[in-house]
């Protein structure tokens, strides 16, 4: 078999048959983004940052617990709050995310007890300067408005209830959460 195989170039013909089959039967797998093909990210894609806008108050849901700022590995979240003496609540003065430093790990949205911060599935964003990618609280809320318009309601980000984490150990608000 060895000699015959060599003389008739069987292996080479096999290879040629493979390429011919690819030419005739298979379609190109190229994704022509953005002209022809749209790319729709899978649920839970970690894209542009946003602060969920509370439908009642029109403000952020954030309670100023600072967990996100603490858990952030690149320390790109900066929060300033002041205590409202009447309601005994923290009021967010500044909530900044520096997207250029962010590593998109998603820890902030996992750790947030009220599901206030989220990495949306929107990924087609650019900036021509550092300022454009320095998200302030207003910009983050705006990001949320832009994003949620494109989504089915109620929207529930997979990272708000992380997979494999026992439900009973989640904070009470996260447990009861069914989406915005």
């Amino acid at each position: 078999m060895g000699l015959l195989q060599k003389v008739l170039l069987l292996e080479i013909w096999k290879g040629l048959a493979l390429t011919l089959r690819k030419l005739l039967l298979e379609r190109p797998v190229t994704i022509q983004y953005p002209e022809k093909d749209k790319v729709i990210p899978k649920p839970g894609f970690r894209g542009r940052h946003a602060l969920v806008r509370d439908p009642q108050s029109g403000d952020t849901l954030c309670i100023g617990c600072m967990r996100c700022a603490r858990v952030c590995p690149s320390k790109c979240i900066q929060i300033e709050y002041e205590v409202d003496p009447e309601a005994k609540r923290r009021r967010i003065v500044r909530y900044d995310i520096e997207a250029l430093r962010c590593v998109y790990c998603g820890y902030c949205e996992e750790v947030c007890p009220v599901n206030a911060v989220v990495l949306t599935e929107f990924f087609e964003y650019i900036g021509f300067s550092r300022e454009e990618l320095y998200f302030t609280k207003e910009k983050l809320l705006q990001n949320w408005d832009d994003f949620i318009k494109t989504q089915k309601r109620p929207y529930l980000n997979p990272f708000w209830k992380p997979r494999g984490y026992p439900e009973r150990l989640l904070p009470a608000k996260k447990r009861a959460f069914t989406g915005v």
Partner: protein
Amino acid sequence: MDITLLQGPVLVAVSGLILLLVSLTHVAYLTYAERKIIARMQQRLGPNRVGPRGILQPIADVLKLIQKEDIFPATVDRPIFAIAPLISLVCAASGLALIPLWERFVLSNLNVGLLFILALSSLSAYGVILSGWASNSRYAFLGALRASAQVISYEVAMSLALLSVVLMAGSFNLQDIVKAQMESPFKVFLIPQIVAFFVFMVSALAETNRVPFDLPEAETELVAGYFVEYSGIRFALFYLAEYFGMVVMSALAVTCFLGGYAGPFEVPGLPFFWFLIKLYLLLFFYIWVRATLPRYRYDQLMSLGWKVLIPVALLNLFVTAFLKLMF
């Protein structure tokens, strides 16, 4: 228009110009076809930006290469460096003039046409080795050394394969070879000379420095081989020479093995139909092989040439001569 009227020098010049233009478009679109076909074989799209389906890509490439600066590196031997691509191109392309494209269309009907084409293809090695030497660069020089060694060793096998055809046809004239094929029992020399055809095709791949024998320009080792120092239009000339080489070798294979311009039936109004169909088939084969096979190692290449192809071609030649004597 009756092409037999082309007797005077003016008419020869005119038909030569037409042949040149047609073959240049063929060569340009051969690069396009190659890129497209290889892309499809690798499940890619290939060029698709310039014009619909990228059909204008070769034109864009040519325009780009013409605009580029023609760089002479400081250490090169200028006159030889400048002239080498021209030698390569002229030797590769002028073979087309000898191929009988049709019964009544041969630009120069030499009675030793086959020998002339072989001589030209050996001469084109001069372009390669001169460019490698004049570039004064290691990569280019190594590429040139490889190219010359390869061309010389495969030339032998190729000539031996073609000699069997000459024996069967009894002539070196390509027109006569085609006519001899039309009168032979199988209508083509491919069937009685299948071994010679195989040897010829393999050596033609090596002769034109194509994959899997593209060692002179082995991208992974030598960057681009002998034309590594070239840029702009001179680079394009080398590129043209390679593709002209492919076309000429395929045309030679069509003429010597596949019955030339003769076909199973006449296609009215399209005298070059069968020739072109066969030519395209062989060119497709070149591209197909390129998309499939990896490069040979240099010692494998040499031992394939000297230990396999030349003995096989010699044996085939002896058998052909013996049978010719017997019958």
